[in-house]
């Protein structure tokens, strides 16, 4: 017993380097950024936030950010959830094909990927050529520099982050469970609704949390696919620091975005805990 007690005391030391590293170079800097946003030249004050939230343009930016992140997440779930099942059911070369198309695109950076989408989506691009050849439209559809184009590119970059967590949960499903339910007379809809869906919820939560937080913070994709006319919180941060040199505005917007991300992390952890407690 005593020996176990000693070991119990020692294991946490192994976590110390990693946790210490992130505390000093990640948590502490973020905390200082938060503090700095309240410390104006005069004294402790929330006037930067009053200014920020008093400007309707900033509400428009927040709305843009949330809406594009929500749309991206919704589409990722819509196509990623079934795709995860296809990946789990596939075997042999088909599975290799699925895995390669998930991993290989990571070798092309977001910058190049977003640029590739500008080539596909532009008015004389491949997609418009195909649409016109199929007779679906008589003149080019405006895709690039629109929100549609943005969602097209964002879903493309982020959908693997939906597929992976859902797939890892599906893999753990016991196929006999659905079989047993069928033998007992349950219809396919009932089996999906009462057995498969609830068991895959942890993967769905993880996927939504990943994609939503990544989409909230995306910077390169909107910059290349929509440009300056569609401002998001990330673009406002980059603009304030890199072009306007307005650090007060920059740190205020950064804190707003930080709070959104923290809410997503805490909410997803809480939801995941609740689901775990229920099963």
């Amino acid at each position, binding site marked *: 017993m005593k020996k176990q007690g000693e070991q119990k005391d020692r294991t946490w030391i192994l976590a110390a380097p990693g946790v210490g590293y992130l505390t000093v*170079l*990640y948590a502490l800097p973020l905390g*200082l950024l938060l503090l700095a946003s309240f410390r104006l030249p005069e004294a402790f004050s929330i006037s930067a936030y009053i200014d920020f939230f008093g400007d309707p343009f900033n509400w428009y930016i927040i709305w843009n950010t949330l809406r594009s992140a929500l749309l991206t997440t919704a589409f990722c779930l819509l196509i990623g959830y079934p795709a995860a099942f296809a990946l789990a059911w596939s075997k042999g070369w088909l599975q290799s094909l699925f895995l390669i198309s998930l991993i290989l695109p990571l070798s092309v950076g977001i910058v190049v990927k977003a640029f590739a989408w500008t080539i596909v989506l532009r008015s004389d691009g491949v997609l418009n050529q195909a649409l016109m050849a199929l007779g679906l439209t008589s003149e080019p559809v405006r895709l690039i520099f629109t929100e549609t184009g943005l969602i097209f590119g964002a879903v493309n970059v982020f959908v693997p982050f939906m597929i992976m967590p859902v797939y890892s949960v599906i893999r753990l499903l016991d196929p006999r469970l659905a079989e047993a339910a069928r033998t007992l007379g349950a219809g396919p*809809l009932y089996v999906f609704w009462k057995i498969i869906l609830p068991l895959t919820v942890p993967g769905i939560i993880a996927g939504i949390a990943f994609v939503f937080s*990544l989409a909230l913070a995306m910077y390169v994709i909107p910059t290349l696919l929509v440009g300056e006319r569609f401002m998001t919180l990330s673009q406002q941060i980059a603009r304030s620091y890199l072009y306007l040199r307005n650090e007060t505005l920059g740190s205020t917007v950064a804190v707003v975005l930080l709070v959104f991300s923290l809410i997503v992390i805490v909410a997803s952890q809480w939801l995941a805990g609740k689901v775990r407690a229920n099963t």
Partner: protein
Amino acid sequence: MTTLERLARLAVWTIGLAVCVYLMVPLFVTVAVSFSASPVFDLPPPSWSLRWYEALGSKRGFLPSLTLSVQIALISTGISLVLGTLTAIAVVKGRFPGRTAISTFVVSPLMMPGLVIGIALLQFLREIGYRDAYTGLILGHVIVTLPFIMRTVQASLSLFDFTLIDAARTLGLSYPKAVIKVLVPVLSPAYLSSGLFAFLASMDNYPISIFLTDARNKTLPIQVLEYLEVRPDPTIAAISSLLILLTIIVLVISDRLVGLRRMTDF
């Protein structure tokens, strides 16, 4: 099978294959453009050529950026492998309170806005008077690569039977030797896949790097975006195609070593 079930299966396969094609589109476009003779990204290319590959060597800035990015990615992934493994062992094997919190904390940078992490780190380094861009980049990239290692190694360790190490010690191995002989082989698939994901995440990182670079230390994504904004030509497609080729080689080797399927234990 009922009609409903058949329809559902058909939908799953159709969507699955459509997603495959959708995911590969940017790669096809990049490779096609890189072999195009035209400088204006016409698709399909009017004629084929290797001119953008020939131009690679003479373009200023690309080779140093690529070298810098590879160095930063290798070093930061290496540091993360060590820190991540130690933290994962502590979280899986330890019985102290706050283990879930530690695990969430270490994985959290994955879900935090990169630009905000970058600014915070930049201001912190400035405050303490640290100005070296190269090490600054490494410090920042460890933050982004660590979550990938932590997630995968933790998942892999939770399936590991730690009494095997004790067994090896009973059989006469020293503790470090027992760890190397027993634990490391079990973790190698996790190292391979998480190491690859971490490496690629570092190579691709723009938001953190943009605040930590200086004129002499520009990572590849920053150089590429700058180049695209000033005078885009398919040289970028050529360099990207080479990176795709490199990843294919790594994937083929990984497939031989551990199997592709285990690469997705994300």
